[in-house]
């Protein structure tokens, strides 16, 4: 076998091994976890959480101000 064929075979094998690992892991993951969990990602979820956190923070600050008597 020439050096060129050896290098080509090595590249094919390495590429195939990496892709096979990905495929195997994807298959295992899909079997191991509930499909609803895997598909549970929602766009804008974090923005909504941040907005709720900001609203909570404002409510706490208002309550504290009222306790201090600085806000009616």
């Amino acid at each position, binding site marked *: 076998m*020439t*050096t*060129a064929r050896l*290098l*080509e*075979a090595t*590249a*094919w094998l*390495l*590429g*195939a091994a*990496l*892709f096979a*690992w*990905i*495929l195997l*892991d*994807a298959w295992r*993951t*899909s079997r191991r*976890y509930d*499909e609803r*969990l*895997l*598909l*549970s*990602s*929602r*766009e*804008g*979820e*974090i*923005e*909504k959480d941040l*907005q709720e956190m900001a609203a909570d923070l404002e409510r706490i600050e208002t309550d504290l101000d009222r306790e201090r008597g600085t806000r009616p």
Partner: protein
Amino acid sequence: MSGTATPVGGHLSLLRVLGPGHVWALGVGIVLVGEFMGWNFAVAKGGALGALIACWVVGLLYTCVAMIDSEVTSTVAAAGGQYAQAKHIIGPLMAFNVGLYLVMAYTMLEASDALVVGDLLKIVATKAGIPDLDPRPFVFLSIAALAFINYRGVLMTLTLNLVITAVACLAIATIFVATQPWGGGHALRHQDLLTALPYGWLGVVGSFQFGIWYFLGIEGTCQAAEEVRSPPRSLPFGTMAGMITLLIAATMTWYVCSGLLPWEYLGTAVVPLFDAASVVDSEPLQVMLFVGTLFAAVASANGCINDASRAWFSMGRDRYLPEWFGAVHPQYRTPYRAIVFLVPIAAAFGFTGLLDQVVTFSILSGLLGYTVMPLTIVLFRRKWPLGSINRGYVHPLHPLPAIVLFALCGVTYFSVYLGYGNQLLTMLAFYVLVSLWFVFHRYRYVRRGAQFTMPWPRPRGY
């Protein structure tokens, strides 16, 4: 490390672990390969000066893209980038098309990058006395290895991109410094080599289609929107810094190459910066430029896998495509099914070996996406005027960038039509057909209410 994170509250989401540096690396990494090869075909169309005009005019087009993108993405911070923007601002059919433009543009660019890696390794093998190396196994290995890294986590993927993109940038800076332009540039012969426009102004317009290579893909920064820690800050900063880097790198590349190589040769060279290093006759510089070219191609393919998979994943999540693609890996927090699905498609395009055709389809898909942006920003400002929602960045001089972008897209379409008219018409026919499929078949599966996720007030006039 991204792989150790666990889902909170029974929900999975992509991990917010990226900073502005990663955004820069994603944008510049995808594009920089165009500085090492491809841009120089503009020289064959319009001469060296024509290529410089194309560089700056197309640079203006992309500056408008970056400005508009930065404003909209700093507000619509969602994976899918321009797809999510079009969905919220224009409507489902346009969003579907934009999503496909993104996936096609990045997947074909990834295939082209892998082809370049294969060809570079073949050149090295030939120089090392191994003349008949088949590049296809190396095309496949590049795609599989980068898909593996992308599969295992976004932080590792884009940290790798940061390092190799920085090395590639350094290679361009090194050859610029090595020619000593401040000291009269002993090796540079601009006075002898620069000629008048060989094919007149029509040649300059014709060169625009290859001028796109200088910047194609910078808009890919938006795809990281759901994974950056602070989208309103990181995305505009990373995108603008990337655009500035590319404008400087493109001008330096043109300056060095046009001063070292005659335009007749430069217009057909496969690796012009590497050839320029050969003219300087410095072996370390040649090695540096070879490494830079290889790293730039790898960084581009790496970023393309990241971006194409995010766009495909987002469309799956909204059921614009089968929902199965909208899955997130519980351990690595990546859109793993989208990454796996796109590997054989990229490999198939890579195995064709038709670099110019594959890149042309990528450019056309990108160009179609840029044409939508003026409409997006005009509707965005009209429906949600300044002050009605929080924007991380507000671009100046509206609507001037939108008008300039639309006009330059028109000129570039004409330029592409001059060189690749059949491909342009084929691509348009393809998008018309898939639009019909979406309208008459797929749209019934879309969650119509749930797809609009931004906590915005009702748009003005509705």
